Each structure stands twice: as C-alpha cells, then as structure tokens.
C-alpha cells in the first residue's frame, strides 16, 4: 500500500475512533456529580401503599393519618454514602417545613439495614422526624425500592406524585413540596 493510502486509512480509523470516544466522554461527563434523578416509578399517580409501623422515637406512624398534608417518604440505609450526604439536608428540610403553617411531613424508612445500625445513624445524625423500621422488607417491596436513597413525594390526597433516586438537597425538596401543594390546590 502506498504511504498516502496508509495515512488515509490510519486517519479515517483514528477519526472514527475519536468520534466514538468523544461520544463516550460526553456521556460519562454528563452523568458525574451525584444528584437526585427522578425515576419512573410505577406508583406515580397511584395511591401510596399503606405505610405504618413503629418508629425509632418510640411512637408509631401511619401515612393514612396524614391525608391533607404533603408527605415526603425517604428510604435510607446507614451503609449508603449518598444517604449520609443528604441527611443534613433532610434535617434542614424537615425543620423548614415545620415552620410553615401547612408544611409537609417528613418520614424516613430503613432499607435493608440492621436495627442497631439504623438506630445509631438516626441518633448520631440528629434526625428529628419519625423513622420507620422495616425488618421484613415489606415496605420496600410495596414501594418498589431497589437502592437507597429513594425519596417519594405524596400529595395531600395520598397519591404518589414524584419518585427520585439519589441524594437530595433541602432546596430541591422545598421546591418539590411547593410544586405539589400548588398542583393540589389547582385540582
């Protein structure tokens, strides 16, 4: 083969490879920066599954009892780094909402974790909102949770309106709740 042909052949191959690699790089770069992403849960627009049980604070919690309020349900585990990252934000969000007249209710649910570890997580991170235990995994099963942190927003009528995977910020949550309340008011 003539040198020119070789050069062309090499040039073309290098060019095609460059295009493929640029596509790969763009794909990977656009995914970095962990943040919560919405996922198409089959529960959206459906009634939220019955969720009740004993909490770590010693009391009980029942989702059904909070009709008329927006409820944010957060599945977490002590062993999951993004859950640890977002905990401060969730605490802040819960506090913000508690200052409002018709604020949202925050509830956490333990996912695939031991009681002891979850208890230790809840106490050491200063969690003030109720946290439900889920020893048999039935709550996780009912909500279709496969990896923490997974957060659901339930509107005042008890319908699931949003599902997100990944660590959330207080700002995001406040915005989501505001959206949900407005949506409910508009019918």
């Amino acid at each position: 083969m003539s040198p020119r042909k070789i050069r062309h052949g090499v040039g073309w191959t290098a060019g095609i490879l460059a295009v493929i690699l640029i596509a790969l790089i763009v794909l990977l770069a656009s995914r970095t920066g962990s943040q919560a992403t919405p996922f198409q849960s089959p529960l959206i627009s459906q009634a939220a599954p019955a969720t009740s049980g004993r909490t770590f604070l010693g009391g009980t919690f029942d989702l059904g009892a909070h009709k008329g309020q927006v409820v944010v349900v957060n599945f977490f585990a002590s062993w999951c780094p993004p859950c640890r990252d977002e905990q401060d934000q969730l605490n802040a969000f819960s506090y913000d909402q508690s200052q409002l007249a018709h604020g949202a209710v925050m509830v956490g649910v333990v996912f695939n974790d031991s009681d002891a570890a979850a208890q230790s997580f809840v106490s050491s991170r200063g969690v003030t909102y109720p946290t439900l235990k889920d020893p048999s995994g039935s709550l996780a099963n009912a909500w279709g949770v496969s990896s923490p942190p997974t957060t659901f927003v339930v509107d005042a009528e008890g319908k699931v309106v949003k599902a997100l995977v990944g660590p959330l910020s207080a700002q995001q949550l406040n915005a989501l709740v505001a959206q949900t309340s407005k949506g409910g008011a508009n019918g």
Partner: protein
Amino acid sequence: MAERVPFALRWSVLGVLIVISLVVGSGVLNSSSASHQERAHAIDTRLKSPDSTGLSVAQSTSASAAAIRADVRSQVNQGRGDDEIIASLEARYGTAVLLTPPGGGLSVLLWLLPALLLIGIVLSAVVVARRRRLPTGP
C-alpha cells in the same frame, strides 16, 4: 503416505468419540421437565436483587431477595407463566429489576455490537485467507 489412512482413521475415531460423548453428556437422552423449584430458580436468576450487591435474586442472601424468592415461588405454584411472573415484578420495581434489559429499542445495541464484532472478525479472516490465494502482485 502409507500411514495416511490410519492417520485419517484415527482422527475420525476422535471426532466420533467427541460427538458421541457430547451428545450423551448433554443429557438430551434422559429429558425431564423442569420442576416447580427449578422453574422458580430459573426466574430468580433473571431478576436483580433490590439491594446494593448487584446480585440476582437467586444469589443474594438479603431479606428483600428472600421476599421476592417467596413471591416467585408462590406465583409458580399458582401456575402462572414465566413471562407473566417477570412482568408482575417489573411492574412493581421498574425495568431495573431485570438483569438483562428488555429487548427492543436501545437494548438492541447490546446484542448488535457483539454480533457486528463477530461478523467483522470472520470477514477479516476470510478476506486475509482469500487474498493470499491470489497471485502476488508487483
């Protein structure tokens, strides 16, 4: 040259032995339909356990995997078909519960890529083999 016949014969014997052994070894000669347990296990290997391990429902020892295994077993015992059972779990957990993405759409690429690579390899082998048979040019 004289021993060429035994040589070809020896290789034929080898070939026959290999084929017979593989046929017998494949177990087609003593077939039995899959029991309920085997069917449930086969379905379990196609589902991802909803924990952080990335393992199949058949492999994971977590509580959620056990819950799904029990669910699949009961559905199999009720007589539901494999596809039905898997569809029911997909409806509850989303497509991520399947260990292999459902066919169609973008997922076609997953199988297209290896197929194209294989075709490419075979073609190059053929091209190189044939090129050398032609009389060498200047």
